[in-house]
Each structure stands twice: as structure tokens, then as C-alpha cells.
């Protein structure tokens, strides 16, 4: 029994060996001329972002592809680009950070309970990493996102799903004053970016907002603006 299996295996391998030998011998000048410059290879990703909070609209989401670097680190000062995003929701500087190979902004605010799918792609270079950031706009300087998740070996048609937690940029004191909250909670009366750093000046996890209903009498925020982790659900789908 065993022996016959071995024989079959041997026999079946033999023609393959012969064939491959034939191919080598048959390679002709014609085939060499058929070699053409390859089409540009495009690596594309669809990133779907869902806002899991009760009452925190999200600023337009920045999605970036990169090969190196991180966009924030616990215990380090926030970059100016991150500070601007976290205090005002303006993602333009973030999208132009030095290590960004391709960046895409969402089309607008994502309201609580809502989702948006953002497409980002890069030509001729398979990106190693993806990052994403957005501000919780009814806060002083809270943001959430993904910091350098690896895309290596993600096949076309496959996806990664995850949830994110919220961070505090550490660049603006969490006063929750009407003059400091850019989101709808202040009806447009609040300031966004201010280059003065009057807080810890180190990125950490956000402690949540206090609100007037929970003991901060000078807060413009109410119980409706409170949030807990996680704050986003994200799916990264490689489409090409």
C-alpha cells in the first residue's frame, strides 16, 4: 500500500520536471520582447469610522498612510499639527506632516451615531502603516484615532476592525469654559486653536469631561457631552 502511493507520487512529479525543463529550453527571443513596463500598482483602503459617543460630534477625520513614525506618544509633547487638530478640529496640518505618504480628509463632521467611509490610496508603494485622528469637538483638546497600525500583509478584500480610546493632547487646560469649546455646545462662541500650552504639555489618556451636571459649575458642557471608552469603531478594508 505504502509503496504504491510512493510510486504514484514519483510518477506524477516526473512530467512536471520534464515540463519545466522543456520551458527552459523553449524560451525564445519573442517572449523576451513581450516584457512590458508594469502598470502602476495602486494600494487602496476604505476606512469606515463610526462615532460611538452620545453627544460628541467628530471633526473631519484625517486618514494617512505612512511607512514610519508615530503621530503621538504618551508622555511626549503633542506636535503642533496634533495640537491644532485636537483644539480646533482643523486637520490640514496633520495631513501634511512630513512622514505622510498619502492623506485624506473626511468630508465633514461625523455626528454621534453616524459613520463615514473615507478612501485613501497610494501608488507604487505598499504603505506599512495607517494612522487616523479626529477631535471630540465638545471638549478642550480631546482626540481619538489610530496611531501607526500595521498594514503589512493585509490582503486585498480583507479588513481590520478595532475600537479606539480617547486621548488628551495636554495642550489646553480642560476648563470646559464656553470661551474654549469650539463645538456646538458653545454655539460657536468658543475658541479653537491657541498656541499657548497651559496644561501638562504631554499626551495622555483623556479623563472624560466633567460637565456642569457633574460638579463643574463653570462648564458649558452638560451630562449629554460625557463619554467613555471606546469612542470610535473603525474598519480598514483593503480594496486594491
Amino acid at each position, binding site marked *: 500500500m505504502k509503496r504504491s502511493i510512493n510510486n504514484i507520487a514519483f510518477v506524477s512529479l516526473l512530467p512536471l520536471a520534464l515540463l519545466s525543463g522543456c520551458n527552459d529550453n523553449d524560451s525564445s527571443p519573442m517572449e523576451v520582447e513581450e516584457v512590458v513596463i508594469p502598470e502602476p500598482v495602486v494600494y487602496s483602503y476604505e476606512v469606515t469610522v463610526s462615532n460611538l459617543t452620545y453627544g460628541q460630534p467628530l471633526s473631519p477625520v484625517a486618514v494617512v498612510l505612512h511607512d514610519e513614525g508615530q503621530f503621538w506618544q*504618551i508622555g511626549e509633547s503633542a506636535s503642533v499639527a496634533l495640537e491644532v487638530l485636537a483644539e480646533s478640529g482643523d486637520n490640514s496640518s496633520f495631513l501634511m506632516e512630513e512622514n505622510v505618504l498619502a492623506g485624506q480628509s473626511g468630508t465633514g463632521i461625523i455626528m454621534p451615531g453616524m459613520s463615514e467611509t473615507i478612501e485613501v490610496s497610494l501608488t507604487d508603494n505598499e504603505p506599512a502603516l495607517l494612522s487616523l485622528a479626529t477631535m471630540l469637538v465638545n471638549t478642550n483638546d480631546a482626540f481619538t484615532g489610530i496611531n501607526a497600525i500595521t498594514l503589512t500583509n493585509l490582503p486585498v478584500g480583507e479588513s481590520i476592525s478595532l475600537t479606539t480610546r480617547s486621548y488628551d493632547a495636554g495642550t489646553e487646560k480642560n476648563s470646559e469654559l464656553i470661551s474654549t469649546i469650539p463645538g456646538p455646545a458653545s454655539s460657536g462662541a468658543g475658541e479653537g486653536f491657541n498656541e499657548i500650552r497651559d496644561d501638562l504639555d504631554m499626551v495622555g*489618556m483623556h479623563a472624560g469631561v466633567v460637565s456642569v451636571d457633574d460638579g463643574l459649575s463653570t462648564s458649558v458642557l452638560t451630562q449629554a457631552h460625557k463619554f467613555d471608552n471606546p469612542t470610535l469603531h473603525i474598519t480598514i478594508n483593503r480594496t486594491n
Partner: protein
Amino acid sequence: MKINTLMAGLTFAATALSSQAQQLDITVTNLTQGIYYTPILIGAHNADTSLFSTGEMASESLQMMAEGGDISGLSMMLSTANADVVENPAEGLLAPTMTTTTTLDTTDGNMYLSLVAMMLPTNDGFVGLDSWMIPTEAGTYTLTLNAYDAGTEANDEIINGGGSPGVAGIPAAPGGDAGTGAMGVTMNEENGYIHIHRGSLGDDDLAGGKSDLDNTVHRWLNPVARITVVVN
């Protein structure tokens, strides 16, 4: 004959994997922006040992750690159980957003990793990792840790230097950013079992009010710490 040989080989491999000594590089990051960690205790221990278990009463040694930051009792307990121990890797307080690193060589049979440190300013809050099974495969493993309440002291949120077991109050607010003169948030600790901390309340009156804590500084959301373990 062949099957017996195979089984013997498997048994040997499993034994070798489960009890082998390992060399670990451990990094601990305080993820909060307003809470300090008192001296951290890390131990690799056997399956019969634990520093704490949710839903159970705190040991006296855990109470000493959670109320006053004193890790000596828990450390002695670990040593008695032949655990591999690292005491106070940050050489004092681990400030908000700061990171400390250490190494830990484990001996045969010490397959579980645990960590505790008191959170200041709290009454009896601590960050904890309870008996995480150390992977046998070399690699880098990242975990996030939650804040627990030892269930041994009422969370009155009064800073009065009280750090001994059974003494009410919070020992200190190392950031120097807390208030005084609070009336107290509560006199009761109705859940006497180790549980997930409900968070501090704080208030906006640093000269009185219910709490000596600042509600814009001393609150947190989980997770409160990150631990990265490199298994070499």
C-alpha cells in the same frame, strides 16, 4: 511503538514550555494625566499565588498597598511563594504619562505575571494586573490595565495624610494640585470586595466642597496604565 515515542516527545515538549525560566523586559506607562503611582510591585509567580482577585476581600497586605502605597507585605508574600520580584522600578512615584522599564528573570514554574501600585490621590484605588499567563513564545506583548478599588476604605476624597490601613483619608496629592477643607464625599464603603474603581468625583471648590480632589484633574477613564512585556 511509534505512537509511544511520539507521545513521549510531546509530553517532554509541553513540560519544557510550561515551566521554563524566561527573561522579560517590562515597560509600564502611566496613561493618566493627573494620577501618580506609588512604588510599583511586579512579580512572576506560580498558579497558587495572587496579589489580588476581583470579587474577593483584600488581604491585609493589599490594603497596606492600596491605602498607603506600602508594598512590603505583598512583596514578602511573593518571596515566601518563591516568586521572582521587582520592587519599585520607577524608584519612587511614576508621574502622569511617565514610563518606567525593568527586567525580570523568571524561574521554573513562575508562569504568571502580576503588578500593583496605589493611585494617588485616591483613598484605596490601585492599578493592577492579576495573574497574566506569560506567553512561552518569544515576542512583544502589550496589555492595558484598569483601576481597581480595594474595597477597604470609604472614598471620602479628603486629603489628610491618612495612609495607614484602616485610617480614613488620602495620604497626599503629589501633584500639589488638590484642595483642602472638604466635607467628604461619603463615609461608607458598601462594597467590601475588590472591584473596578468607579472613579473619583472631585469638585470645583478647592477650599471646601465635598471633595479635596479637582474634578478637572483627578478623574480618569480606564485604562489607566499600559504594560509591554518582551519575552526574550
